[in-house]
């Protein structure tokens, strides 16, 4: 066992920080104590369940098909998560599914096709999770910002529609802004790599005793794939959201009706 392996007592000790966080939020009356407790409990249960399942999936004797099934599950769950955040948008699931499949196909083809990592269950599941998870986060932001802009900037969008523009043309300025908002954090994270923080995969590899330069190469390859996945996911989800908000009469569906 590596000396950096966290034991059960170590995990229990880390909960002290959660207690500190709850105490601080209580003293400032932020009303977050219950939320923090639930989030901590959920993460504990979810990750223990996932960890147990992963133990079975990454067993060398287990077929790689189980890992691919896991990846399919990640794709579907991430797609569903985006749709849940923008319930105003009808029938968005096919768009978010298509987005995640595109991101996964491109990302995994690069990572495993070019031999960045060996294709085995130990790498397939976590790499897929990182690529699709980050794409999901930016997809949520892109979809939410498009929905907000369709309501907030309705006057300008309708002025464009009244000139015979398509909904995509009339909302282009706001969709571009939404996509920038969705993609920018990942660009910042890529730019700040190593200076501001050491990212998760690299930290994990270092804790597991890997050579720092090996850890850096693995992390950089992942970050570049994640960055392109974020861009692809944001664009597909953002444009797909506009498309789903477009009515047959070439108007944008009303998500927040102001007045008549």
């Amino acid at each position: 066992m590596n000396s950096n392996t966290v034991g059960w007592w170590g995990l229990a000790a880390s909960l002290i920080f959660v207690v500190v966080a709850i105490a601080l939020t209580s003293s400032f009356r932020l009303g977050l104590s219950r939320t923090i407790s639930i989030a901590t409990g959920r993460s504990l249960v979810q990750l223990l369940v996932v960890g147990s399942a992963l133990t079975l999936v990454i067993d060398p004797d287990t077929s790689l098909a189980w890992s691919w099934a896991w990846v399919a599950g990640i794709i579907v769950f991430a797609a569903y998560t985006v749709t849940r955040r923008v319930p105003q948008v009808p029938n968005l699931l096919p768009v978010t599914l298509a987005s995640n499949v595109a991101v996964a196909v491109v990302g995994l083809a690069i990572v495993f096709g070019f031999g960045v990592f060996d294709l085995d269950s130990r790498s397939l599941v976590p790499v897929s999770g990182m690529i699709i998870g980050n794409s999901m986060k930016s997809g949520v932001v892109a979809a939410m910002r498009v929905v907000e802009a369709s309501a907030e900037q309705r006057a300008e969008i309708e002025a464009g529609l009244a000139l015979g523009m398509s909904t995509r043309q009339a909302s282009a300025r706001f969709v571009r802004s939404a996509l920038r908002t969705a993609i920018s954090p990942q660009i910042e994270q890529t730019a700040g790599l190593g200076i501001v923080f050491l990212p998760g995969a690299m930290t994990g590899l270092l804790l597991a005793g890997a050579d720092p330069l090996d850890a850096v190469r693995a992390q950089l390859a992942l970050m570049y794939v994640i960055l392109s996945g974020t861009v692809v996911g944001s664009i597909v989800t953002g444009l797909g959201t506009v498309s789903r908000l477009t009515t047959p009469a070439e108007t944008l569906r009303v998500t927040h009706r102001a007045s008549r």
Partner: protein
Amino acid sequence: MLPAVPVAPTPLFEFRRVGLTIGGTRILQDVDLVIPERGITVVVGPSGSGKSTLLRCCNRLETPTAGTITYRGDDLAELPPRTLRRRVAMVFQAPVVFPGTPLDNLRAADPALGTDEGCRLLERVGLNPDLLERSAERFSGGEAQRLCIARALATEPETLLADECTSALDPDSAEVVEHLARRLADDGMPIVWVTHSVAQRDRMADHVVALAAGRIVTADPEEEAR
């Protein structure tokens, strides 16, 4: 030789039992209406009477939930919305100027528009053509609304819809816009003009449609215009 039988002119818009319900709220109910081909038809009514919604139905920014609307005899629901909106232009209550210059705004309507044509459009709405390549975002409310009308005219529309387009303007600017509308109507462009102002109705109307609570109260041009 048989005598010529007078044929009723095709109306500009004809509403037949049009209704529009949104979220359980009836905004238009059983609207039967003929808007004639020529002149300025003023749609008047108190706030919330559905007059803006009625206007928005004319270029399919709203879709009725009941009944049919025809434009020059064609079922509106069958006309491609983007083509229809270039034939039936609309100016809104609050002028919406796109970022950039007046020329950029005019080119949003017609990307191939040249500077000479841009100058002519500004002159047509009473704006100084020297403004063509200045920042449109510094325009006063009246200038901005006239630019919006010029932008609408850049699509070379057959008909103009105006949704309380002077209500956000000072009296002098409103007068300029009213004169502009009258000139366009006199040049043969039919205009459907929404207002809540009885005084403006009296100044502008060739025909009047009065709405209350989503229903037509009167649509008698001769009576109401007086």
